[in-house]
């Protein structure tokens, strides 16, 4: 690969709080792809909770902070299609009537990528050096799929993981029912949606469900454990980085030694 490029990691608020191992897996993958990775400390969240709740003023305040924190890097990469989609598609929309900010928002938008799409589409990665002796299925998280076109890239890289047997999930493109604040505002609908998803996952007989967005994974993992379905949920980055056995799966306690 060519000379190192400077990548800033957009950690995402869920990875920061719930599952830092996804962040470290992302760093490992980016470094393997020839990037130097920095983590701007002035980041918190992309602002989507405010934006999708109709609170435009707070969404803009947070977006301004992100735009400032991530200025000057070659690329900004997030282990989430949802957060990357927010920056790429919705920041320019937020500042549509502020020409100076719009230019900055658009400049950031064009440099911002979802992790797996970045590895394949920008860095030309075709294989990973990882092994995982399990069967898995993959859920296409909505924002990555429909806002950013993340569909073939994760399957390409997963196919190169030694020992991994990947089977397709029925209705893989149907929403799992997370939807940010949706899942707590309309919990009964969300439960029905995630139950359907859990049922399809169980029907594959796979050991693991993988996806590229931690929000969806927390939702799916939470329903799987509640139903007692023994399928482990993990972020795709953990598997691609060969770190899937370093930490227990989402919602599963560490084995007492």
């Amino acid at each position, binding site marked *: 690969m060519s000379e190192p490029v400077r990548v800033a990691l957009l950690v995402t608020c869920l990875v920061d709080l719930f599952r830092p191992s996804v962040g470290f897996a992302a760093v490992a993958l980016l470094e393997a792809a020839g990037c130097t990775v920095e983590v701007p400390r002035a980041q918190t969240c992309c602002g989507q909770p405010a934006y999708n709740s109709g609170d435009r003023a707070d969404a803009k305040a947070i977006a301004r902070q992100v735009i400032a924190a991530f200025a000057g890097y070659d690329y900004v990469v997030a282990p989430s299609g949802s957060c990357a989609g927010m920056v790429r598609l919705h920041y320019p929309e937020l500042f549509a009537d502020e020409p100076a900010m719009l230019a900055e928002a658009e400049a950031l938008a064009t440099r911002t990528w979802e992790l797996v799409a970045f590895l394949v589409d920008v860095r030309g990665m075709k294989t990973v050096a990882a092994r995982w002796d399990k069967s898995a299925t993959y859920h296409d998280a909505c924002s990555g799929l429909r806002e950013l076109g993340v569909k073939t890239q994760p399957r390409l890289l997963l196919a190169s993981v030694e020992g991994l047997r990947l089977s397709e999930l029925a209705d893989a493109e*149907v929403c799992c029912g997370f939807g940010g604040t949706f899942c707590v505002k309309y919990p009964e609908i969300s439960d029905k949606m995630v139950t359907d998803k859990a049922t399809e996952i169980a029907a594959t007989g796979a050991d693991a469900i993988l996806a590229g967005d931690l929000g969806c994974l927390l939702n799916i993992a939470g329903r799987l454990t509640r139903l007692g379905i023994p399928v482990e949920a993990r972020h795709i980055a953990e598997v691609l980085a060969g770190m899937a056995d370093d930490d227990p799966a989402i919602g599963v306690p560490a084995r007492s030694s």
Partner: protein
Amino acid sequence: MEPTSHSFPENVRVGLADPVLQRALGLARTGFPLRRQQAIERLPEFEALREEGRQIKDHTLAHLDFYLELYEKNVVASGGEVHWARNAAEAREAVLGICRSAGARIVTKGKSMVAEEIALNDHLERNGVTPVETDLGEYIIQLRHEPPSHIIAPAIHLMKEQVADAFRAAHTGLDPDRVLTEVRTLCEEARTVLRPQFLAADVGITGANFLIAETGSSIIVTNEGNGDLTQTLPRIHIVVASLEKIVPTLEDATTLLRLLARSATGQEFSSYTTISTGPRRPGDLDGPEEYHVVLLDNGRSELLGGEFQDMLRCLRCAACLNHCPVYAAVGGHAYGWVYPGPMGAVLTPALVGLGEAGHLPNASTFCGRCEAVCPVKIPLPKMMRHWREREFAQRLSPPVYRTGLRLWAAVATRPELYHRMVEVKARLLGWLGKTHGRFRSMPLASGWTLGRDMPAPEGRSFHSLWAERQRRSGR
């Protein structure tokens, strides 16, 4: 129909607990998307057609006044009459007035969502005119005294057993031994009852899928042929349509027709596509003696030039309903008014008010499937977000939710404070959840833990661990 959209959460519980509805929705959620997908795979230019469809509608909306006047001129030139209705009441009065002037007692009706919007049947019945729905689905729900639950398949919430029950209850002359277990026998039974009504009707009322400005024509598409019998047999044909149904030319309508059936049912074309232009002319073999169009605004013109104008492109194909996971979970009645699903979540607040229908644009995960399948590329999630913005600005959302959001944002815009709080939370929850790896219940998170566990955090925040790693490596 009186909206019950404000009771959306209660309506949802009813829908989720209804085993018949859940069985019916289970069939629809896979059937419709599969047939649409197969249809568009056979048409390589489908994506280009979507763009063309969008442009036709955008052009028409940008010049709507011009095309409406041209349309009226051509309706009149072909011997028909246009009745402009600003609201539902004016539309109802216009229809009733025509029925009265004809001394009508029985009115047959083709399927029309605008007729549902203006609650036409109730009004006619109260005034001594008997409306008879002739679309099978509409006929079934008329017998059951309930509103449609879907804009192209009004009785989709029912299985055939409920239909048989409705027929046995209403068709008093029905032989109790008659077997009504197959779809075919149900259709035959409906046909037997409806045939004499077609012949007895004084007035036939249809909707319109398109109104053609250059010819003054209306177009309907059906799969049952009932619309044709409704509009050609009675002495008077009334078209009830909303003003955004207008397109400039027949060619434009043809382009949109190529999108419509494929998006709706996965058919290349509906079984019947019928163009009506004015009343019967001298020498015509059939057709009505009078042709009226009741053209409804009902708040639509207020959407022009604003952030909801794109909604007026809607063809009413129902692809957004058919692909919506929320609709598939709760069914159409939960939405509480005429238009359910994503298109209803955008349109209903515009037509009945945000105070009544505020839940609908909130009850979406923004999964984006509706926009992805819309034949005229309506940005439905974006417009639902616009409603949420209005709701927030007008302080219509719950105060506890608004306050929580403002507090969260205040912290999220102070990174160092935010990082300290996340680290405390990660350590605390990580420690509390260490044994089980998850929580079965949690204060302030009952919505989440109702049906799923809350996975426990790993125990440290990423930013703290990263800072430590940087210090260790001396960077």
